[in-house]
């Protein structure tokens, strides 16, 4: 569809992933230029961006990508989101997707946009991520852990009427490898609920935090790190929320192939470290998450990680509104894709003032979505929250319309 329309033109590498997702969802061709064109050493698309484009190619049918020699110009003509239908790279109903070892982003960088497209796919989206670049923990590049995606992002789809048969299994954990590149994790995403249109959302009561859950993981290091992180985090959070549980998971270090001259079968351990993912749930079902993991360089005490994560959670909660900063893009995009009705969402002032959210709003309006209406929240508005009214585009699932 929309072949006659001229491509939308963007510049720069910012928000590239969401631009690609929006392009796929709306069916508009995009033309992105000046991607890191000013960088003398690494111009053009970065490895993780290329990986994402490859992933897009795997889950869609008929999409065309053109990249210039230097990688600074990208033209993307989207196809239909097919999900994992057999015959399109899926084996056994599951798309196997391997990330290269030079990937320095956490898996959530791929997962969150993929989940955004999955409800609008034609068939269930089943992707198995493996390879030497899968990092399940949170990363220094600012990606959340896969645990947080599962516990803080995916439950949000429930509010849009998307809840059936959604699973995110972490089969193998991995922290970022040395210098923050590579990992050896294995993650399986099953997104089996496809809808025509997501429901219109009205979420204006943040409620009070009623419980805090968390996952603390240590990969290839002693499990006592877990206990230490839990103790510190609980020490901070327990007086504030008595219903606090942090689940501990101790995993072996993943092995990735590292062939050398003498032994072509050689493998090495990668992705050692530990980390903590916390999720706070309010009485109205709003979720706030926080993620901290040990840096690849090491040298951080688990107590510091626990403390940092607990404070980060409190900070996220303190920002107010019904949406955590990390989930704002997901919520707004789904609301925009909803039926032609006005959805309302209460958002903290700091959350909406985030540059990435503003960029998303600009991109959305460029893709033809009506602008957001913003007004101050009514009632006792102690945080200065704003209510954002988003009109759905009513496009929804193009694949479903045909099928």
């Amino acid at each position, binding site marked *: 569809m929309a072949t006659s329309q001229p491509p939308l033109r963007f510049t720069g590498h910012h928000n590239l992933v969401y631009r690609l997702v929006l392009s796929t969802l709306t069916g508009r061709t995009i033309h992105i230029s000046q991607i890191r064109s000013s960088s003398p050493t690494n111009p053009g698309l970065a490895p993780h961006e290329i990986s994402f484009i490859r992933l897009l190619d795997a889950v869609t049918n008929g999409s065309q990508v053109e990249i210039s020699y230097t990688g600074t110009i990208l033209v993307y003509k989207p196809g239909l989101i097919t999900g994992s239908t057999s015959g399109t790279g899926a084996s056994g109903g599951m798309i196997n997707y391997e990330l290269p070892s030079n990937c320095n982003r956490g898996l959530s960088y791929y997962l969150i946009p993929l989940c955004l497209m999955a409800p609008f796919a034609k068939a269930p989206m089943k992707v198995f991520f493996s390879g030497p670049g899968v990092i399940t923990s949170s990363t220094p590049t600012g990606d959340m852990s896969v645990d947080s995606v*599962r*516990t803080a992002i995916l*439950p949000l789809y429930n509010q849009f009427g998307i809840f059936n048969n959604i*699973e*995110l*299994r972490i089969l193998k954990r991995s922290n970022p490898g040395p210098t923050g590149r590579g990992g050896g994790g294995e993650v399986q995403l099953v997104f089996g609920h496809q809808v025509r249109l997501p429901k219109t959302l009205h979420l204006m009561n943040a409620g009070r935090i009623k419980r805090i859950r968390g996952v603390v993981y240590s990969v290839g290091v002693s499990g006592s790190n877990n206990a230490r992180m839990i103790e510190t985090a609980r020490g901070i959070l*327990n007086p504030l929320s008595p219903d606090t549980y942090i*689940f501990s998971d101790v995993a072996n270090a993943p092995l990735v192939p590292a062939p050398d001259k003498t032994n072509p079968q050689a493998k090495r351990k990668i992705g050692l470290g530990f980390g903590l993912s916390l999720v706070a749930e309010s009485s109205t*079902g709003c*979720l706030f998450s926080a993620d901290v993991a040990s840096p690849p360089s090491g040298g951080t005490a688990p107590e510091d990680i626990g403390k940092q994560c607990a404070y980060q959670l409190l900070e996220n909660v303190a920002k107010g509104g019904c949406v955590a900063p990390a989930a704002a893009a997901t919520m707004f995009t789904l609301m925009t894709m909803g039926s032609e009705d006005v959805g309302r969402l209460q958002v903290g002032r700091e959350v909406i003032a985030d540059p990435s959210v503003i960029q998303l709003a600009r991109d959305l309006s460029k893709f033809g979505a009506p602008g957001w209406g913003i007004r101050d929240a009514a009632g006792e508005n102690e945080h200065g929250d704003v209510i954002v009214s988003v009109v759905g585009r009513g496009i929804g699932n193009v694949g479903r319309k045909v099928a």
Partner: protein
Amino acid sequence: MVVKRKRETTVVSKPKAKEDSPPAVDNAQDVFRKLFEAQFEPLDLPAPTAKAAKPSNSDEDEEDDDSDDSGSEGDWDGMSDISDESNQVEVVEHTDARAAPADRMDKKAWKAFMSGKVVSSLDKPTTKPEPSSKKEEEEDSHDMMNLKHDLSLQRLLTESHLLDSADDLAPTGKNRLKALDLRMQSLGAKDSLYAQNKMPTAHRRGIKAKAATKEDKRRREAKENGIILEKPSKVTKSSNNGRRERGVNGASVGKFSGGTLNLNKQDIERVQSSGRRMAGGRGKGKPKSRGGKR
């Protein structure tokens, strides 16, 4: 002798447990009371910790309370005492008291949370499972008991005619077998296991005649008394339909015995008549097939 020894050991062990438990309870109560007093008015209960610490003082307080109706001074003393103690306790007790029970996360909760499933509301099962599961278990056991009782009562009602006396409610011996047979029939068995199916013809006729007269009598009496009975069920005479069940591969006419197919007159007549009729009346298709079969 052995029993006595056992008793002794239990007696010894009990006080130990008692000695261990009270301080924790007191501390918890202290914390609670302090919280309460921070929000509301101070309580003027004689503090158990104060008693434990200095019994003479508490006695005096009590006397004061008894003597003074206003009790303001007594309240004030209590406050200061409590606050002093709780300040000391709070710092030490805070992490210890809570970490101990909370660290025990049951496996079920862990599995529920760490499974790949997306829980719409952050793992509901983890908070509830213990109380709810206990309750459910109790309810289940209650239900099970009720069902058992129901079943036994039903059986007693249906099989009570088999029982000789009211002393033994469970049938034994022959009666047990009969009861089992009844149950089989209620579950769908066609005939009783003990129905005699081989007997002299005269015997069977007698039985049938008797049953017929009985039924006849019952109906007649009912009619005379103006009672409306159910309609008599039509007895289908399966044997009289003329055709008996034949084997799958056997001949469709005659009687096969001793390696030969014997046709009597009737069979021959029937075959000939049907063939004629077929040939004349209905058409050609049928008799051919018949012929093939033969």
